[in-house]
């Protein structure tokens, strides 16, 4: 959108100041426009600078760690004890915690989120939708530390009532609460995608005698696949990057396990744990959090790229 108002000819009728004055004014105004455009451009390029800075900080600090620890050990060691004398740096341990808790969270969020999205888009009346959507939004707006407190103080005791052998900290209760937190991310994007499906497709389906459920599952959902997939991917990257719920409710002991009923540390909760202590700048422990952060960043980047690809690949254009 660049309209060149400046290049239009200057009207010369009944001007109190001379033409040369006006031309000078025009030149200065042109200058001002350029300066402003440059300022706005600089503001926009902050986003690129931020990404560059994130990559630079994570990679440079991690590289100093990898001078001490080989990449092979980092990827294959089965112990994560960087702060002990007998130091081991196996990211697998933290990764297992992240994957297990994310799995629990997604097992809650994806089905519930999809059902809510289908229900809101195809079944609910206009009034219901107007009330339900803000409530879901509030669910996504609650600070995660509150969810952490909720998982530790309400959900864990409730689960212990059902399964008495569950420990006080577990990936399960953290994951369940995390799943509820992620529901709105999944449901609102999927619903948007379903509502973008043109009415004519639904009408065609209804005209063939399909019920609302049949129309929803066999016509609307397939037509909205790309949007639903990107909603899922957003949910996954939320789950992987979630921090406070896990730091509060899952315990912070590194534990190589895929059993949700055990406590465990995730990549994110490890970073919090180290940051809570006073680690000197430049120590190995300090560098490990950047290596952990880099692993996390690479994982979310993969998901983001996958989402981008899915949107391109499966996009239905009407």
């Amino acid at each position: 959108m660049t309209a060149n108002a400046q290049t239009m000819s200057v009207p010369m009728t009944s001007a109190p100041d001379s033409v040369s004055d006006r031309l000078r004014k025009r030149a200065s105004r042109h200058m001002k426009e350029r300066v402003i455009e440059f300022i706005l451009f600089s503001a926009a390029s902050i986003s690129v600078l931020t990404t560059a800075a994130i990559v630079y900080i994570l990679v440079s600090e991690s590289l100093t760690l990898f001078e001490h620890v080989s990449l092979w050990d980092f990827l294959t060691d089965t112990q994560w004890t960087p702060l002990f004398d007998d130091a081991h740096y196996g990211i697998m341990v933290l990764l297992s915690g992240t994957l297990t808790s994310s799995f629990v969270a997604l097992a809650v969020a994806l089905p519930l989120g999809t059902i809510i999205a289908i229900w809101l888009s195809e079944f609910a009346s206009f009034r219901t939708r107007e009330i339900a959507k803000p409530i879901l939004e509030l669910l996504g707006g609650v600070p995660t530390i509150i969810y952490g407190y909720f998982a530790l103080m309400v959900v864990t005791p409730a689960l212990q009532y059902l399964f008495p052998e569950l420990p006080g900290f577990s990936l399960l209760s953290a994951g369940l609460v995390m799943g509820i937190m992620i529901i709105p991310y999944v449901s609102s994007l999927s619903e948007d995608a379903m509502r973008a499906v043109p009415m004519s497709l639904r009408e065609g389906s209804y005209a063939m005698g399909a019920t609302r459920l049949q129309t929803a599952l066999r016509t609307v959902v397939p037509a909205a696949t790309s949007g639903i997939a990107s909603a899922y991917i957003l949910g996954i990257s939320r789950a992987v990057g979630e921090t406070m719920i896990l730091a509060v409710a899952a315990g912070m002991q590194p534990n190589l396990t895929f059993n949700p009923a055990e406590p465990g540390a995730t990549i994110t909760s490890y970073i919090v744990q180290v940051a809570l202590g006073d680690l000197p700048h430049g120590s190995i422990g300090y560098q490990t959090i950047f290596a952990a952060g880099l692993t996390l960043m690479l994982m979310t980047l993969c998901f983001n790229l996958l989402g981008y690809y899915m949107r391109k690949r499966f996009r239905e254009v009407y």
Partner: protein
Amino acid sequence: MNQKDIQAIRAIITRHKRWDMLFGLLGLLALMVGVLTLTVLFADMAIKGAARIDYDFLTSFPSRRAGSAGILSAWVGTILVMLVTAMSAVPLGVAAGVYLEEYAPKNWVTDLIEINVTNLAGVPSIVYGLLALGLFVYKFGFGQSILSAGLTLGLLILPVVIVATRESIRAIPQMVREGAYACGATTWQTVRDHIVPYSSAGILTGVIIGMARAIGETAPIITIGALTFIAFLPPAPYTEVFPYISFEWLMAPFTVMPIQMFNWTSRPEAAFQVNAAAAGFILVLMTLAMNGMAIWLRYRLRRNIKW
């Protein structure tokens, strides 16, 4: 068609209708899981914490004794950090949004910026904490200060502000711009006098949602190494002598509401858990109020503006 076939068809129709109804119930049930969680969460904090909230709780510093501990330094810290966040994220976000919608040519630089904004929105908040730890705290030497925390959260909500700005600018019909240009306005004059004023309500909605998110963010602030036991206030922003305004508070150590709550949650004594519930209750009220305001604003906006 004989009677038997008709009956078979009717049975199929009944079955499909039953499934339809069942799914209607299932959807309602799924929604109720969310609503119920929100209610239980809110009620639990209210029951455990509300009795603890009084004047002393708001005006006392944290203490080793749970009974006399308060959140004075936490809420003052939160307000100051939010001030820095708003001051950094709003101008930058609005400027970036305006640039992308009104100025940006279609080329690879613009594409790069757009991809980055989308990607940054998906970066976990703790990664911003690591960025701030490496960049603001050590490279720039801001230390573990209000300035570092405010800028970190500012970067974190920048994509939210940019996206909100772009969406509300996009809702302005093209004829408004054409009218302005036809009168000889420059791009900047059009933006300043028309585009920004008309989209301001939408931008405000986005800013409020972003701030509501920033106010509850804990992970990045813990990562920059914010202290959790702060029993003093940052220096006052005004002085008795000329120039009357002081920016010393920007460099002061601080604590914020979510960190205070995390600190209390991780203590074993039950009395501190009550404090955590009380602090959490106030925090939830703040974020719910901000989110509610944004939702109400959006609702008003949709009703009032008819181009």
